[in-house]
């Protein structure tokens, strides 16, 4: 989705605002899975890595750097969601 800079700013504001409102309501009991969950979500930067990977060209150094970024981000996503799921299972049992 292409957007003008100001429209992007607007969306940034709206998303941050929603984030702030929703997260303020999360009870203390879930703060640890919240942190590991946001770890996972911060791995979304993988998208940026995927987008730029085909453009790095010949430079082996840059390619390795992007691959490192991909490894880091993937670790975050997979590891983060998996451990968060593990924790939340514990809270589910109590239903």
């Amino acid at each position, binding site marked *: 989705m292409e957007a003008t800079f100001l429209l992007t700013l607007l969306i940034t504001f709206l998303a941050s605002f929603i984030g702030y409102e929703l997260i303020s309501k999360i009870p203390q009991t879930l703060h640890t899975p919240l942190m590991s969950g946001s770890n996972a*979500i*911060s791995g979304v930067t993988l998208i940026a890595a995927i987008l730029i990977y085909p453009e790095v060209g010949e430079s082996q150094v840059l390619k390795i750097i992007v691959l490192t970024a991909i490894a880091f981000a993937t670790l975050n996503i997979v*590891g983060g*969601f998996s451990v968060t799921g593990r924790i939340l299972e514990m809270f589910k049992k109590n239903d």
Partner: protein
Amino acid sequence: MIEIILLVSSVLFIFALKLFGRPSTAHRANTFAMLAMALAVFSAFNFDFSNYDSAFYITIIVSGLLGVLISKRVQMTQMPELVGLFNGFGGGASGAIAYVELSKSTLPLSDYFVAIFSMVIGMFTFSGSIVAVLKLRGKLNNVNTTIANIFSAFLPPLILLPAIWESEILSLEYFMLLSLIAGIIRVAVIGGADMPVVIAFLNSLSGIAAMSAGFIVNSIILIIAGALVGASGIILTLLMCAAMNRTLLDVLKGGFGSKSINNEYDKDPISTSPEDVAIQLSYAESVIIVPGYGMAVAQAQSAVKELTNTLKDKNIEVKFAIHPVAGRMPGHMNVLLAEVDIDYEDMYTLEDINSEFSSTDVVIVLGANDVVNPLARTDEDSPIYGMPILDVDLAKQVIVIKRSMSPGYAGISNPLFINDNAKMLFADAKEGLEKIIKSFELV
């Protein structure tokens, strides 16, 4: 088509966050977020998977598997370290991407500044997180704050240095290095037990780094997801600071807990035995357990569960009082208790339970210290003065289980231990509890 996928993905991310608001729906939140992430990542390929070589796919698969492995192996007591490590990865990835984009000579000026910002924040997060994890593991001691002060003082000239030499490329690596060093020094001077605040703060930074990466590659979904992470981190940071009655600036300045503070008692505590505790408990009608960092260290959560069952079988009411900064990360105690199947309905926050202590028969303080220190209410000179604490000293009887009279993280003595209504059970949290349970069988 891609746009629709991204729209759906954004909506899913937000509903995931909404579902996260209640323990009973939170596991569905994780599924939603996973789906949102899968869609977002998928859309990035734009249906053209041939642009990617085997090195790319191998990296994804190997690190994915590694992620699963780590997440299955990690113990709940190690969550603070894991979160810290993942913050570092997130920041490092965004910083690396910014670096690669900056290496292109074609970047428009507006993106250039965003990219510099993203690289600096990302690299700072990366190195800072590594230091934070080492500190949590006890592999690094506090560094004197003067080092940080000197570095801060020299930072402006250091930043202006590249203006003097010419090569643009070199100055990029130079900024990267500066950010890495800044991350190390800043975190190094902060006391070990302030690490939870630092980690939440770095969490926020990793989100901001991802968000700015979104501005560079023009990806709305990256911006939205990054903003959510940024908001989450900053809220938890401020929450912890409020729970300790300190400001974020004060925490980041470092040096807390390095002063050596008077830690002597003018009276001997009353010590007790597991048998006595068991007898006392069996006469109680209501018991509140206050877990602290010591419970995590001793891995005592299963023993807690066992004791709870024993007490409940005797129709004794058992509640858990959890201070917002008990342990080494927000919600740390809750997760450990949930791990052994203790109902989250039985876990109470400070505001919800503080009025109940005075009508409670026995309070068990299990490896907690600062969060139950009455000096926070009375001693204006104390470093924890003004911090809201659990008022366990008001209970009819308090039993403190810890190994010695040594202080908690704040390094100060705790007059609760020599209170008339308090008895000390000097033991490792786990062993102490197990002995109490055994005594019950004999009672």
